[in-house]
């Protein structure tokens, strides 16, 4: 995809606000002259207060390139400068500035037949969801596996949509904090070597690996993946700060 050389700030209008979890909402946006994006890219969002003070954050794009609107999933950070406005106050019709799409490193465009392993901590699943949605929209045959680490089942983003995914996509969830609900058949506890081995695919088939989440989660996951034998250059990481910023 040809990228415009210089990023410019565009005015996005909120078309719809969707509740995802108690702490996260998805904003469906209309952005005039949006040039399109690749799965895994992000945007910078800039809010300007009446006194001119500006705050800027980056958010992954959660929608597929094929979708007709741009979607960002925002997790509320209680002392954040940007996310509480986007999750609590902004309503359909409101506008804010964004620029993008940004990034070429943490991208899956479906042009390779190599399997993909997606590893998410909490709301780090957003750019990986864009990849899975792109996978679905293109009818991809690529073996795709997601391991999502969440505090509790209620914190799992896109739960119904993930449940509905079928081969060649396989979705695994591990619950790290609350006791698992009765009949839970997924993993529990923090991500481990055994868990990654069970999810696969094995390093020998050289999957592309994408890890996104809070910095400590990504550090740990990347370390385990390399220890298991995944080639470091195939392990793409996107860290977003101590707890999600």
């Amino acid at each position, binding site marked *: 995809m040809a*990228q415009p*050389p*210089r*990023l410019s700030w565009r005015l996005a209008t909120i078309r719809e606000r969707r509740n995802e979890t108690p702490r996260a909402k998805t904003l469906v946006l209309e952005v005039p002259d949006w040039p399109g994006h690749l799965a895994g890219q*992000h*945007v*910078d969002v800039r809010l300007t207060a009446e006194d001119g003070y500006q705050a800027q*954050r*980056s*958010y*992954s794009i959660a929608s597929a390139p094929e979708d007709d609107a741009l979607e960002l999933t*925002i*997790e509320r*950070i209680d002392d*954040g400068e*940007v*996310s509480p406005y986007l999750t609590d106050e902004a309503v359909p019709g409101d506008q804010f500035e964004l*620029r*993008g799409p*940004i*990034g*070429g*490193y*943490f991208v899956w465009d479906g042009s390779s037949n190599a399997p993909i392993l997606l590893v998410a901590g909490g*709301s*780090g699943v*957003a*750019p990986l969801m864009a990849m899975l949605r792109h996978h679905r929209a293109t009818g991809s045959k690529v073996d795709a596996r997601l391991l999502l680490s969440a505090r509790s089942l209620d914190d799992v983003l896109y739960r119904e949509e993930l449940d509905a995914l079928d081969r060649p996509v396989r979705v695994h969830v591990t619950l790290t904090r609350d006791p698992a609900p009765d009949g839970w058949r997924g993993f529990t506890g923090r991500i481990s070597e055994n868990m990654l081995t069970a999810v696969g695919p094995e390093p020998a088939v050289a999957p592309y690996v994408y890890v*996104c989440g809070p*910095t400590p989660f990504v550090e740990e996951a990347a370390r385990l993946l390399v220890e298991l034998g995944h080639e470091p250059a195939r392990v*793409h*990481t*996107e*860290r*977003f*700060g*101590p707890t*999600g*910023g």
Partner: protein
Amino acid sequence: MDTSEVHIDGNGVAGMLQQIFVTEITTARRVCDSCGEEHPIGAHRAYSGAGTVLRCPACGDVAAFVSELPNEYVLGLRGAWRLRR
């Protein structure tokens, strides 16, 4: 992703870098002066405070520093940056 004031990835500051380089820079590769390893800019570690510092993911040596001032960027680069033509 919601970036905050701590160690993220080069990818997380890609918007600012694209403003400076006028091209997508996270897929460019850099050979570290200190350890000799080559990594994509997107895989470097980014630390933000008054400005942004990029560090080699292997050895932690400084790869770049960037400050955004009202009318200019102040930029320093180290190592060999390989940008696709």
